[in-house]
């Protein structure tokens, strides 16, 4: 109930006072996509061998901007809602979830946009599209885990937010968003495998695989060892478990420390 109310207000307030309103939820990743598309696909000529490369690129940016938005909001959530926490008692996790919910809503809208784009581009509807929610859940679980963990630490050490920003800048290049992973695989197959162990990369590649073309390199078809294949999933699980324990331990003192 409270969660619903908070999400509602958050979403309502996000784009208030702007002429285009909710449209920005779609416009932002689209514009980012436009820039990347012009720079990388047109000028630098990346990914000419990949079918439907523009949609491929769009999927990556949509997933990536979801992840950054989600973590960014989540990490700041406890501090951001400090005034509430100091005055009223309610389950603290609500704060984190409600703050990330807008990102989820945006992602869902954007996925619809991606699908429309894909259809326009001539991608045939596939049965594997049904797996899309599973991938979203995995990425959201990772983002939530990071939000809970770093959000709790952020109460005490405000540096976390800045460190995370820098980390994400670096991560942007470590994840095959703008460049196709095949480019890395051509020069160093080992490097490509390492990159695919990153759960974010794994999710993005899986998304491209299920949504656009089965020619996509994923951790499942590129890494031979079944145990190593599971590492991205394991990372998500471990982060989630550690985060939930840490958050639960720290949350009773949020009210006084925030």
């Amino acid at each position, binding site marked *: *109930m*409270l969660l*619903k*109310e*908070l999400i509602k*207000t958050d979403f*309502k*307030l996000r784009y*208030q006072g702007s002429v285009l309103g909710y449209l920005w939820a779609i416009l932002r990743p689209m514009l980012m996509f436009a820039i990347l598309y012009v720079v990388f696909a047109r000028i630098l000529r990346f990914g000419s061998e990949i079918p439907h490369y523009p949609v491929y690129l769009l999927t990556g940016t949509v997933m990536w901007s979801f992840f950054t938005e989600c973590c960014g909001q989540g990490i700041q959530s406890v501090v951001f809602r400090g*005034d*509430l*926490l*100091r*005055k*009223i*008692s*309610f389950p603290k996790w609500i704060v984190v979830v409600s703050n990330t919910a807008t990102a989820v809503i945006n992602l869902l809208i954007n996925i619809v946009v991606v699908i429309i784009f894909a259809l326009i581009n001539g991608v045939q509807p596939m049965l594997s599209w049904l797996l899309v929610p599973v991938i979203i859940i995995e990425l959201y679980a990772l983002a939530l885990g990071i939000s809970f963990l770093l959000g709790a630490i952020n109460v*005490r*050490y*405000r*540096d976390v937010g800045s460190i995370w920003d820098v980390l994400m800048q670096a991560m942007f290049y470590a994840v095959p968003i703008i460049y196709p992973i095949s480019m890395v695989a051509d020069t160093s197959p080992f490097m490509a495998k390492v990159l695919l162990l990153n759960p974010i990369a794994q999710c993005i590649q899986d998304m491209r695989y299920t949504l656009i073309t089965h020619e996509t390199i994923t951790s499942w078809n590129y890494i031979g060892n079944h145990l190593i294949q599971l590492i991205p999933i394991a990372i998500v699980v471990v982060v989630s478990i550690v985060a939930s324990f840490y958050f639960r331990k720290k949350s*009773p*003192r949020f*009210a*006084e420390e925030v």
Partner: protein
Amino acid sequence: MSKDIAISVSHVSKSFRLPTERSWGLKQAIFNRLRGIKGFKEQRVLRDINLEVERGEFVGIVGRNGSGKSTLLKILAGVYTPEKGSVQINGKLVPFIELGVGFNPELSGRENVYLNGALLGFSNKEVDKMYNEIVEFAELEEFMDQKLKNYSSGMQVRLAFSVAIRARGDILVLDEVLAVGDEAFQRKCFNYFENLKQQKQTVVLVTHSMEHVQRFCDKAIMIENGRVVCSGNPIEVANKYSKSNALSDEEEKPNIKMSVSAKLKRENGKLTINSKIKPQAPLKDLALVFVILRNGSQITYRWASRQDCPEITKKLKKGESFSVELSLDDIFPDGNYVFQIRAVDANTGAKIASFNNVADFSVTPRDQQWAEDAFWKISTEAKLSD
């Protein structure tokens, strides 16, 4: 017989870590670690607090700034967790540590009511039920669809307070929220408190106003330095609080060498107050004023020796002990009363000293023999004796 306990606080202690140097941030934390500084000071805010509130009781918590009463309230509200001890709450507790928690200036009045309600733990349906009453109480019917930022500050407070007051819970916890709005709205609030009291709503109220404590509370506790220093009868607690304030504010008593005491008797429709005055030295040009205050501040009765009994000035001049017996019609409406003796300059009437709380009594509705249209003048018979 087992009592119906609404709130039970037993042996609760709480301390805060106050950062000594700025220790937010990683850099400071590492520096402090290296230098062997803990980076915080342990401040004990509450020590071994015990409090029991029965269902239907109106309990006041008083204490000076920084005594820990707000912390106690936050513990009751579940915002802070106690370090030691336990808190048990039976029923739905609605806390108002601050008015308008979560109010957002960009939302309309209506949306804010729902958001605020949700924060207080009410479902949408429950807020639906309260909504009309809230708006009506706040007198903001035509403004509910406006954004909160277009409200005047008074309107915002009124809306917040109305949510607070209309929110139906088993236990209400209020922190210094009484003095809001214009006079008419304040009066409305006080009437509402009276209603709460009559409906036997369980209320915990933190306040600085001794008038409110005496007027509304069935029981009060006073907190000083995180300890309960006094609990029980609201009049006693209020007196003690006033004294503890007076001691540090102004030293009133020493400049006059006189001791007073009084005995009160109520029978046969008469209230008899027998006061003993003992000057310890001859006191020149002094007159006495006998005052009865209702609920801490309203003067309901005043008898001045300057006009009514000049004898007293002479006796004081001689330094003689004497006693004054005032016999009044006992037509006081219900409330808590204190009897006060003030020493004034016999010529100018300027106040020199006052002896507060010489005696007190209370009138409950049951023994009230007073009608609305009673002629409100108390006839006094004064007897002076040595």
